[in-house]
């Protein structure tokens, strides 16, 4: 059968042959994957299903490559509605699948804010039209993310939101945060907090420390994150509701979470590839592409984040994909916006932890597939029979140079341009359809 038909809406049977399947917790070894009608039918070697022998089966050769569940990102910014000049759901989901992500959770900091069912539905519809990655909207905690009145969380969940968060506008009022946790309990959705005390940040735009002092740049102290991590842990304890801590960046944050988990507190935590790959040194020369929030920290923090991944303190790796237009990142460092394009470099940066022996391949993929899917109760992240046929196929050994001009994202903001990375996505399938092909 012709491969071209694989892109059609209702594919029949696909067999991914010759690869090493890593389905965290289930399979780790040489296996073929049989997909029928958008679902996983069988994973094994040799395949037992008779249909696998059928002439009509589309065969995808994955020899030498790794076959894993499509990656799941709990934290991205798709910018639509409101900031379509930075990214649209179309370009954002194209960027996602180019990075191997098949399910992405979109933060509500759109314009208008995703604090009502109409915006949620709009995002879902746009996602379906794009036909690439699955879009899972995250609703706002408070109306317009102003941190004052609770948003209609019930309505948001009913419309399809999988979690709630005020994203980069953290809920500063602890009482409002307490109420949000309590209220969310009824709907079983995780509450995600970007841990930052805005008073302590005080206009800072990079890590506070020796480098910020040398550059004369207002700094963001570690404590700005840590006091809110501590607050959220106390509130998780008070309410019994799980708080998901977004993109932790400091050593003490990891330590606080480790301690809380040891005490059995309901808490989960994520970390971004840039925070465990580079440090504040990348800001030198006032590189606006190295400006993100939380900021790039120190070598010591980077090591602690890696250790957190190793010992399970950090549950998931999330991209914090935050595209911005060229003209915005061309501004002076302190006026340029925070954030980087995350989807298209997340996998190789994570694989670097495998190549340097920090994590096993299965551990690394677990943080990008099964673990995030479980945290947000998403029906994805596995290749067990009956699962949705969302698959990423990558060459873990191929070296390539990051070229922002080649990004599928509408934006180009990355501090990794020109860097040689190892590990390249070859194919991405959603519902058994080949949505990205770089063979």
């Amino acid at each position, binding site marked *: 059968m012709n491969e071209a038909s694989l892109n059609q809406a209702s594919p029949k049977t696909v067999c991914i042959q010759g690869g090493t399947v890593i389905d965290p917790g289930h399979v780790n070894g040489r296996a073929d994957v049989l997909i029928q009608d958008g679902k996983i039918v069988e994973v094994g070697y040799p395949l037992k299903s008779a249909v696998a022998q059928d002439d009509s089966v589309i065969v995808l050769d994955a020899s030498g490559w790794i076959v894993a569940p499509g990656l799941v990102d709990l934290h991205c910014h798709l910018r639509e509605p409101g900031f379509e000049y930075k990214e649209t759901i179309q370009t954002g989901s194209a960027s996602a699948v180019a990075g191997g992500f098949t399910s992405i959770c979109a933060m509500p900091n759109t314009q208008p804010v995703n604090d009502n069912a109409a915006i949620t539905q709009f995002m879902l519809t746009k996602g379906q039209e794009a036909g690439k990655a699955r879009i899972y909207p995250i609703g706002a905690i408070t109306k317009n993310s102003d941190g004052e009145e609770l948003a209609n969380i019930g309505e948001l969940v009913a419309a399809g939101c999988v979690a709630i968060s005020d994203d980069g506008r953290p809920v500063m009022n602890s009482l409002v945060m307490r109420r949000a946790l309590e209220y969310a309990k009824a709907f079983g959705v995780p509450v995600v907090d970007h841990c930052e005390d805005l008073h302590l940040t005080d206009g800072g735009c990079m890590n506070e420390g020796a480098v*910020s002092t040398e550059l*004369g740049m*207002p700094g963001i102290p570690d404590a700005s994150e840590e006091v809110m991590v501590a607050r959220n842990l106390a509130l998780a304890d008070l309410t019994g509701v799980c708080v998901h801590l977004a993109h932790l960046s400091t050593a003490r944050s990891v330590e606080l979470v480790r301690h809380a988990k040891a005490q059995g507190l309901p808490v989960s935590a994520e970390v971004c590839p840039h925070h465990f790959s580079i440090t504040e040194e990348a800001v030198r020369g006032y590189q606006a592409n190295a400006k993100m929030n939380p900021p790039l920290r120190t070598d010591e923090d980077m090591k602690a984040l890696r250790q957190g991944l190793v010992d399970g303190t950090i549950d998931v790796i999330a991209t914090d994909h935050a595209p911005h237009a060229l003209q915005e990142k061309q501004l002076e*460092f*302190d006026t340029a916006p925070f954030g980087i394009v995350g989807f298209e470099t997340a996998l190789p940066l994570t694989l670097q932890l495998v190549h340097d022996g920090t994590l096993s391949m299965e551990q690394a993929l677990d943080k990008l597939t099964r673990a995030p899917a479980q945290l947000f109760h998403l029906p994805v992240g596995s290749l067990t029979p009956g699962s949705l046929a969302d698959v990423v196929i990558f060459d873990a050994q191929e070296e390539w140079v990051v070229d922002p001009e080649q990004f599928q994202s509408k934006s180009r903001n990355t501090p990794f341009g020109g860097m040689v990375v190892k590990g390249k996505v070859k194919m991405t399938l959603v519902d058994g359809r080949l949505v990205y092909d770089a063979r």
Partner: protein
Amino acid sequence: MALSRKDLLAIHDLSVEEIELILTTAESLKEVSGRDIKKVPALRGKTIVNLFFEPSTRTRTSFELAAKRLSADVINFSPSTSSIVKGETLIDTARNIESMKADIIVLRHSSPGAAEHLARFVQSSVINAGDGWHEHPTQALLDLYTIKEKKEKIEGLTIVIVGDVAHSRVARSNIAILNKLGAQVRVVAPPTMLPSCVERLGVSVFYRFEDALIGADVIMMLRLQRERLGQALLPSLREYATLFCLTAARLKLAKPEAIVMHPGPLNRGIEISPEVADSSAAVILDQVTNGVSVRMALMYLLSGSA
């Protein structure tokens, strides 16, 4: 030797040899300002643009005089008279100016790194006339020139920088230049006005003014920005003045021949008492005079055709 660089962005980037070349050139040029006809034709036909996004009459005037004494044409460009208010970016503004064939752009901007950022986008030479809290290299050069004039050598001197180091580009540039030349630099301020890891800049840290003054050869006062008052950095001007005003009594704690510097404008009675400001120890007006020579030197050295 020649100054083989396109821009002057930060003291941090300069070698000791480059600093010495700038000072030697300034020394040779100082004579021009003492003539009846204070003008030489060296930069005839060159265009220098003062692009000032922050108001600063004295620095701008100093650059303007320096350029005019070298016969360059000077244009003053400031946000109120430009299209910045219309949302034009710094880079577009600067490229416009460059298209009018500016040879040197002198930039004052509130963003740290603005000069470095600009220099990446334009062919013109860029002189940093102050970028946020980052650096004010010409101020450090003129301060160094003034200290050298009074003390002859820098190595081994004990220099105290007093006041809001955290928010001071003058402090950062001076710390960098004095360290390069082998001085012992002390900073003294309320801890709220010292930046994180300040000792990593190569200074010793004091909180009590009196302790810092003992044995000082040079006392550099920083201007207290009154807008800091609302930021929980200081309880009141009165308390600051009580603890950190350089009075005649405090000056006695320093070495007998110690000199007092201030980048201006002075807050008399806040960081410096009138008796000290007007005393023979104060070299504040020498700083202003030397500023013109140092800026002439820089403009001359950077004006080689690229």
